[in-house]
């Protein structure tokens, strides 16, 4: 009896400790979430009273060409940003791992700089670089004698551009991200690499030297050491980055809004969150936008569960 009361008193203490956080999360996360979920079954323009429409918003979204195009462009972004961020992050981490090298600290700061740069400022900087008339990119192209490229207004997919040389027209899904989207992907990679580098550096430092010594005694080459020791023991870091980057990439918005405020050439940079934002805050189709948001949430959730189920098995925890 006494132990039960003590337990109760203990749990009261615990609840009191978490209550400030719980309150903030309830007000700013759970309440809006529930409210948005209810609104996603209504049509609402923020001014008139909401009208219940059942599942219409969801069916309209799933039937809309623009919605699926936005999904496709989001996939392009994720598939463009993810592998390069991981590979370059690992590459720079391997270069910077040596603590005895002079100036490692400075290099680490330099590579981490893009991460702490405001995405808005970075996007504006990229806009200047790739501007048609005064951009550095085109200036350099002209210096080496080639034609300037309209980076920010070319809607053709880059794979289609390549296949244009052979006069082959690809189906829409295979055309690849537009050139403008590639510039935005480049910005995404530039901002992610520093973060990946730091995470990989931490991962590398936790790998014990004994493995490498043992491998050296067995006569393993540098490549073999990397492939059989470094990479597998880094897999927790890779898994963490994979999940973080996929979630963040699906939600990309800032750079798109700054670099292509009208949705890019032929809307080819209109990723799903941009589409959602337009529906909500330009067209005031609030209910519809919230339905799209929940579809996106469902999607990210499925992806993440899939990753935990199937990829986590391959992760080596030391």
């Amino acid at each position, binding site marked *: 009896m006494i132990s039960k009361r003590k337990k109760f008193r203990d749990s009261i203490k615990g609840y009191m400790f978490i209550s400030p956080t719980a309150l903030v999360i309830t007000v700013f996360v759970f309440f809006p979430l529930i409210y948005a979920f209810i609104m996603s079954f209504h049509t609402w323009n923020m001014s008139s009273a909401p009208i219940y429409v059942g599942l219409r918003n969801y069916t309209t979204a799933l039937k809309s060409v623009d919605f699926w195009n936005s999904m496709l462009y989001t996939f392009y972004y994720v598939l463009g940003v993810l592998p390069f961020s991981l590979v370059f992050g690992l590459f720079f981490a391997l270069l910077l791992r040596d603590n005895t090298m002079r100036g490692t600290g400075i290099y680490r700061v330099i590579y981490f700089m893009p991460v702490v740069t405001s995405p808005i400022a970075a996007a504006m900087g990229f806009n200047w670089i790739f501007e048609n008339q005064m951009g550095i990119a085109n200036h350099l192209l002209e210096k080496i004698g080639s034609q300037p490229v309209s980076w920010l207004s070319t809607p053709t997919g880059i794979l289609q551009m390549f296949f244009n040389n052979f006069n082959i027209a690809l189906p829409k899904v295979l055309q690849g991200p537009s050139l403008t989207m590639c510039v935005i992907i480049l910005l995404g990679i530039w901002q992610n690499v520093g973060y990946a580098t730091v995470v990989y550096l931490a991962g590398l430092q936790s790998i014990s030297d004994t493995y490498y010594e043992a491998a050296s005694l067995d006569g393993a080459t540098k490549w073999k050491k990397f492939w059989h020791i470094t990479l597998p023991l880094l897999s927790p870091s890779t898994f963490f980055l994979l999940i973080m980057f996929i979630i963040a990439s699906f939600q990309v918005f800032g750079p798109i809004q700054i670099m292509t405020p009208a949705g890019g050439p032929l809307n080819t940079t209109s990723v799903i969150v941009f589409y959602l934002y337009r529906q909500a805050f*330009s*067209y005031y189709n609030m209910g519809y936008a919230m339905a799209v948001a929940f579809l996106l949430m469902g999607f990210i959730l499925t992806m993440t569960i899939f990753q935990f189920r199937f990829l986590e098995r391959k992760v080596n925890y030391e």
Partner: protein
Amino acid sequence: MKRSCFVIFVTLLFVATFMFANVRLVFWHSMADYQKPALDKLVSEFNSTHPDIHVVAIYEGNYDQTVTKLKAAFLSKNTPDIVQLNIEHLRIFTANRQLLDLSRFISETPSLKSDFVDSFWKTVVINGKPYALPFNISCLMLFYNKDLFEKAGLDPNKPPRTWKEMEEMAKKLTVHAPNGRTIQYGLFWGVSGEDTAFYQFEPLIWQNGGKIFNSSMTKCLVDQPQAVGALKRWKSWFDKGISPANMTLQEGIQAFMMGKIAMGPMTSGGIRYALDNLPWDLGVAMLPSHKATVTTLGGGSLAILSNISPEKQEAAWEFIKWMTNTKNTLYWYENTGYLPVRKSALNSLQIRLIWKKFPQLKPAVEAIPYARPRPVNVDIIEIRHILFNAIEEVRHRVKTPEKAFKDAAKKVDKILELEGSK
């Protein structure tokens, strides 16, 4: 001693201002960059001449963003008292009675209504009731680079008057490098895709004798031959190589400012900015005409919100009336290029002095009789984005003009239909 006296005096003055300024009004506006100083000057002058009213002017982003913020403000019950709204956005708020019907005030001063330029006044009247006062009205003008005209052997004082003349001049104004690359374009008829989307394309349809909607706003008419014809003509400027096909609007404006493009349509609200900042000689002219002579009338108005106290309503009315009076509308015109909204201002002697100083401001006033307000309805922002995407599909050669406008009209009709059922 002297100093402390002074400090006490200033403090007292400060306190006094706040005590007597018994009505405090919050005014949201969309005037950025070069227009903001002129607006701030007007507001501070109002505050110093009206000790019992204090207006606080706050910039809220462009017109579209102001709509979003105002909608959100209504939800959180934290609205301003006066707001500058694009004349095309008034309906979004009158539909839910969120703006104050100004009929009562107007009837108190009958001479006021008749002094506003008639075509401007019509833009603020919805279902027979005025909901705002026209404040910063502009029309689309043709901006051209006089220096480039001279270089090409054209008379810089004779801008093109028809589409045909414009095409011929643009051809002469297009310059190629020895390697065949175009280094200067004659024309860039850029169309905006975000705030005030489709703005620059509407006059082309009207000039070609077409319409964008039927008169009851229930059907989109861009699939009709006149509108499609305008789109074809616009496309031909890119095909002929006299217009750059691969520039965003921003890049096009940049190139125009750098003297790499000779002509283009711009709003009269930017004339003063252009005069102050362009290193070359600017010419401003009426848009070239085709079957009809017409340009777009756009811009903003000052509205009062309906949920404020009668005392505040009186003060707010005083403010918007003052902002649009003859003297201030002329000041506003001279410092921005937005048109004077009062007939008495148009007929004044002062306006001639302004023209002497800035002759480029005159053509905009002469264009007033030809300026047509843009068609509006509640979903206009979404509709304009659809129409803008259609012409982009043509520019990027994804669709033919016929197909692009046919598809767009279908989409727009669907929105209009849903609206009718709401």
